[in-house]
């Protein structure tokens, strides 16, 4: 029998996960799609706007698009380069991660404070009709909330995804709606991950009555169909169209999966020799949890987190569709679909394009989640 000697490499766990992930074509393309969606969402104001990027009138050059940006749009634009800087400096920052954290928090706080005091310049006019010796318009020269006289225009070169009942450009609304979906997906999942890790971690590490109590709590939460519970909370507290409340409610109702998983991981890991060794040399519980248990369960947590973003996006669009989420004029995919219901017998583009956008987004996240799961732990393989 030919023997293949065991391959010994100094490949780290993270590299191995990355390599396995890369080997999965679905996962790879899913991740590409997710990144692409992020870029689209980030650049939405530059891709779909009624203001010109550059305008030259009477020899004067101006950049009207920057004057028209909302604070929330500025914020999106600043976070991305901030993330890039942190990524590029990660090696240096990792050694002084406390300083890095303080720096990031300080920058975010500064941005928020400055934005809270600055007022958007409201410029209702558009640059499409304005005369200028030179103007560079965005690819879709309409803003998402701008109504035109072109009602129910089917897809054409002018409006690639058509227009709705008030003549708003669907392509522009969808590009900006991507921001709504992605930010709700991410923020609500961060909340869910936080609650799930804390409760699941406590249950898995301390066992006994803590565990029993947390498990009952999980079962109680799981008894309420999540969409129903979210609808009830939003309906009773009359908080539709409030993005932060919607994020919080989705987060507070979708942590049970994370908690179950973290609990199971902690139950498994807390009896492993390395945990016992850490406890034996007198490490505090907090140190054992943060230094030994949590890093070792990060892979599976990342997997549920990814699936969670997909389901949060789905819930958000369902809420908007039912009229309990983000509503016009705020662009949201679910809301476009909601409007399409009334005109379904002729305006197919109102349902088709946002439906496709939701489908592609959710599918990409699910592919990434599935690929991650296979890469992180072949035992969890579903393929």
């Amino acid at each position, binding site marked *: 029998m030919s023997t293949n000697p065991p391959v010994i490499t100094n490949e780290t766990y993270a590299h191995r996960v990355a390599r396995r992930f890369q080997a999965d074509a679905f996962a790879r393309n899913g991740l590409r799609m997710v990144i692409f969606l992020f870029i689209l969402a980030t650049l939405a104001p530059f891709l779909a706007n009624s203001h010109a990027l550059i305008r030259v009138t009477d020899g004067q050059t101006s950049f009207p698009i920057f004057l028209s940006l909302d604070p929330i749009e500025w914020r999106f634009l600043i976070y991305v380069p901030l993330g890039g800087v942190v990524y590029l400096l990660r090696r240096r920052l990792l050694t002084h991660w406390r300083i890095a954290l303080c720096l990031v928090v300080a920058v975010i706080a500064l941005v928020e404070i400055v934005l809270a005091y600055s007022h958007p310049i409201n410029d209702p006019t558009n640059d499409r009709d304005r005369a200028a010796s030179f103007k560079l318009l965005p690819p879709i020269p309409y803003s998402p909330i701008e109504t035109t006289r072109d009602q129910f225009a089917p897809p054409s070169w002018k409006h690639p995804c058509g227009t709705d009942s008030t003549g708003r450009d669907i392509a522009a609304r969808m590009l900006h709606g991507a921001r709504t979906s992605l930010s709700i997906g991410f923020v609500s999942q961060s909340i869910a991950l936080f609650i799930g890790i804390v409760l699941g971690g406590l249950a898995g590490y301390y066992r006994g009555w803590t565990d029993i109590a947390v498990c009952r709590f999980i079962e109680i939460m799981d008894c*309420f*169909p999540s969409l129903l519970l979210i609808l*009830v909370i939003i309906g009773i507290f009359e908080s539709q169209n409030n993005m932060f409340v919607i994020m919080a409610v989705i987060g507070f109702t979708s942590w049970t999966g994370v908690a179950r998983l973290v609990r199971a991981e902690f139950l498994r890991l807390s009896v492993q020799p390395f945990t016992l060794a850490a406890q034996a040399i007198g490490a505090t519980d907090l140190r054992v949890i943060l230094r030994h248990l949590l890093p070792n369960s990060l892979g599976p947590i990342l997997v549920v987190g990814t699936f969670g973003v997909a389901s949060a996006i789905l819930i958000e669009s369902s809420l908007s569709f039912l*009229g309990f989420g983000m509503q016009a004029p705020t662009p949201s995919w679910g809301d476009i679909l909601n409007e399409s219901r009334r005109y379904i017998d002729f305006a197919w583009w109102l349902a088709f394009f946002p439906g496709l956008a939701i489908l592609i987004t*959710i*599918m990409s996240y699910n592919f990434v989640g*599935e690929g991650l799961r296979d890469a992180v732990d072949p035992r969890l393989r579903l393929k």
Partner: protein
Amino acid sequence: MTTYILRRLLLIIPTLFGITLLTFLLVRLAPGNAALLKGGGGEGGGRAMTAEQRLATIKLYGLDKPPLVAYVDWVGRIARLDLGESWIDHRSVTAKIGERIGLTASIAGSALVLSYLIAIPLGVTAALRRGQGIDRVLTFILFLLYSIPNFAAALLLILFVAGGDYLNLLPMYGINSINASEMGTWGWIWDRILHMILPVVCLTYASLASISRYARVSMLEVLGQDFLRTARAKGLSERVVILRHALRNALIPLITIFTLELPVLIGGSVIIETIFSLPGMGQLMLQSLENRDNPTIMGITVLAALVTLGSYLIADILYVVVDPRMKYE
């Protein structure tokens, strides 16, 4: 087994307590109810409430009593199926739910049964042809189905096969045609079936996708087991080996999957019944939410939670009954 079931039943008590407490807290904290106490608010869907109705609602939720007393009262009322009166038409919530629950249960029930019936053969086929073309295609299609939001699917189905500019094969809205009563018994039944096709399809496909993924994994696990080799070594045909020895084992874990699907189906029926104008519980839920009809909202919520809890219980007991390994422990 009896002790196991008894222990399982005991575990229900804290969960029941939690469900009622959570809904009670929601009611207490609801701004609409708080406003009632102050004598204002209470505009049920724009309709001003009479002093009498206001008092009834205050009594229902014990808004004027200390929280603990009010909670005990509330649990007692639920136990007697007294969910109060609707703020909209002043009818008993129990009666309102009662006349709509049948439709929702039959639609969600047929969706669940259908998805199991289709999902298991699909999952088993994919597992048997693991890694081959048919497995990849099936896996991809199921993944696609799993990711389509049901409201988008409903709208596109209406657009393409029910009315719209394209095919006009199936009715778009409602549970029966307007002239259904003139069709005779068989005509009426056929008409009802036609109306149910699209809603059931929209509820089925996502559950179908997720159940068949579980079925595939479950079957793959069984296919690697030693006892199949024993069965083959006995001389049994491949058909018997798969359909009798493998399938029986693969089906056991699938029993509990319906508990995962049930909450999804309940949430889905709110969307589907709204889109297809079906007078079920989901539609009632959305109407009540739009009209701020708190007693009805809370009634449906409690009911949905209790149904889900009941399904957990049934699944756990079924598991013990079906799996001989659990029976004697």
